[in-house]
C-alpha cells in the first residue's frame, strides 16, 4: 500500500512531492524562525522568559508546518500556508526590533 501510494504520488506529481519537501524543510524552518523571533520580542515577559518560551514552541511550529506541507491538497496550498504566516511573523518581528539580526 505504501509503495503503490508512493508510486501514485510520484507519478501524478513527482514535482509536487519535491516542491512539498522543499516547502516543509526550508519553508517550515523559515516559519519557525520567524515565529520564534516574533514571540521572543513580543511575549509580555522578561526577555529571557520570552526567549525560552519562544524556543520551547519553535520545534512544535516546525513540525506542524512539515505535517501541513504533506497533508494539504496541493503543493501550492502547502507553500501559501507556510509562507503567508511566515511573512506576517517576519513583519511583526521587524516591528518588534529584530533589525539587529541583519
Amino acid at each position: 500500500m505504501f509503495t503503490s501510494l508512493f508510486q501514485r504520488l510520484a507519478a501524478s506529481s513527482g514535482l509536487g512531492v519535491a516542491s512539498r519537501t522543499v516547502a516543509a524543510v526550508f519553508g517550515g524552518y523559515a516559519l519557525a524562525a520567524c515565529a520564534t523571533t516574533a514571540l521572543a520580542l513580543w511575549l509580555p515577559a522578561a526577555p529571557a522568559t520570552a526567549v525560552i518560551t519562544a524556543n520551547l514552541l519553535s520545534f512544535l511550529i516546525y513540525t506542524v508546518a512539515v505535517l501541513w506541507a504533506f497533508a494539504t491538497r496541493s503543493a501550492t496550498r502547502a507553500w501559501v500556508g507556510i509562507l503567508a504566516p511566515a511573512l506576517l511573523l517576519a513583519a511583526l518581528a521587524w516591528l518588534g526590533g529584530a533589525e539587529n539580526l541583519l
Partner: protein
Amino acid sequence: MKAGLRQSMAWLHTWSGLLLGWLLLAMFVTGTSAYFREEISLWMAPELHHSQPSPETPALAWAALNATAPNAKSWDIQLPEARSPVAQLRWQPDTPQAEDGGRQRGERAVMDAGTGEPLAPRASRGGDFLYRFHFELYGVPRIWARWLVCVATMFMLVAIISGVITHKKIFKDFFTFRPGKGQRSWLDSHNATAVLALPFHFMITYSGLLIFMVMLMPWGMNAAYQDGWRGFFQDVFPREAPAAEGGAAAPMVDIAPLVARTRATFDQPVRRISVDWPNRDNAVIRVATDKAPNITDQRRGGHPTLVFNGGTGELLETQAGDAAVPGAFRVYNLLVNLHLARFADPTVRWLFFLFGVGGTAMVATGMLLWVSKRTQQLRGKAPGAALRLVNGLNIASLTGLLGALAAYFAANRLLPVELAARESWEIRVFFLTWLLALGHALLRPDRRGWVEQLAAITVLWAALPVLNLATTDSHLFSATAWRVGALAGFDLVCLLMAVAGGYALWQVVQRRPVRGQGPLPQRPRPQQSMAQGPRSERGTRTAGDGA
C-alpha cells in the same frame, strides 16, 4: 479527506523513517548506553575498582593538591559518590600557557579515595565515547555531525507525529499482537514498542532539539539580546568572575572542619570543593553538597554551598541552592533533565534505560517492517538491488553495531595497558568491527547474514564476562561479593545480551521463514526469505537489549 490525510501521513512516516532510520538506530543504541555512562567508564577502568571512600578523603585530596599544585590558580576536588568510588582532582596552573588559545583544560589526576595514592587508569574514553557518539558521531567536524544528528531528530519528531496520525486505532492496535505472521508481526511489534513508550519517545526527541536550540534556532535570542546567546546566558546564569590576581603567599586553613560544617549546615554529604587562588592571602574556598534532586532544577550548579575565606576559615556566604525560576524555564529544565536523567535514582535510571531499549526496538522493527513489506510484495521473485541494500544496512546497523559495541568493551580488556594512543585504538576496534560487519552484511543481505551476525554477537557478549574474569580481579563474582552494583550489573547485562542474541539466533535457525504469502509454490531458496530476518518477538528482544 480524512483517509487522504492518513494516507499522506503514512507515506511521510514511511519515507522519513527509512531515510534516517539507520542513523537514529545508532543514536538510540549509544544514547541508551549513556544512561550508564559513568558505570561503563568505571568498568573500563579496572585500576579504579579498589578505591574505597572514607571520611578522610577530603583531607587526603587537600594534602595531595598541596603537594602537587600548591601555587595553582584554582583547585577543584570532586569527592566520591555512589556512581564513582574515586576522588577527581583538577587544577588550573598559574602559568600564561594555560590561557593560550582560550582553552583552559588545566590538569587532572585521579586519587584513591581510601589511601590518597594517585591512580593511573588505563587510557580509555569509556562511556564518554558512546555518549558523545550519540550526538556528535566521531571523526566528523563537530558542527556538521551535530546538525546531521539534529536533522535526524527532527525527522523522528515528524515520524512520531505522522505515525500517531496514521494509526487512528493506535491504542487498540497496541493490544493486537499477531506473532508468526511475518510483516504483520513486525507491524504489531513496531506499534507496541512505539506506543508503550510514546511519551518517552516524544520527550527524548523534543528535548534533544531543545538541548541544541542555540545552534538550531538562535533567532529569538539574537533578536532579544544585543550579544545573542552570550547575553541570554549571562542573563539566565549570572556569574561573578573570580579575582583576577592571586595575592601574596599565605597558608590556608585545614579543610576537614569546613567540610564538617557544610555537611551539618545542609544535612547532605559534601561532593565538591573548589578553591580560587589556593595558598594566597585572597584564597576563597567553596564547599558544595549534594542536593535533593528536583526535576525542574537548572542544568548548572544550584548545589547548596558554603563559601569560606581560605586563610581564616571565616564564613563569607551561604548559598542555599537553586532559586525559584520562571515557569517557562521550569518546562525547559524538566524536558532537558528528563533527557539526561539527571535527577534519576538507580531504579528510575534502569527505567529510562529500558525506555531507550524500547526506542531502539521501535526504530529497528520499523526498519525491518519496511523490508518485510516489500519482500512480501515481490511474491517470491528475487529482491532487487535496493531492497538487498536496505536489508544489508539493517543487518549492519543492528547486529553489526551490537557486535562493535562488544568488541569495544573487549578491546578495553585485551589491548596492552602501555600501548601508545590506547584510547584511540579502542575506538578503532569499535569502528573496524562495525565496518567488517557492514562488509559482511552487504555481501550477504539475507537470512544467512542475520544468522551469522547473530551467532557472532552472541559469542562476543558471552565472552565479555569471561574475559573480565580472566583479566581483572573485579569480575562478576568479586563485584557481587563487594556489592558493587555497577560492575556486577555490567557483566550481567553482557550475559543478558548474549542470551537475547542466542534466543534470536535459535528462533531464526529453527523456524523456516514465513511463507505462503505469495501465490507461487515456495522453494527453500535463501534469497526468498532474505528480508524476513528474525521474526517479531525475537527481533524485538534482539533490538531490545541493544544498549
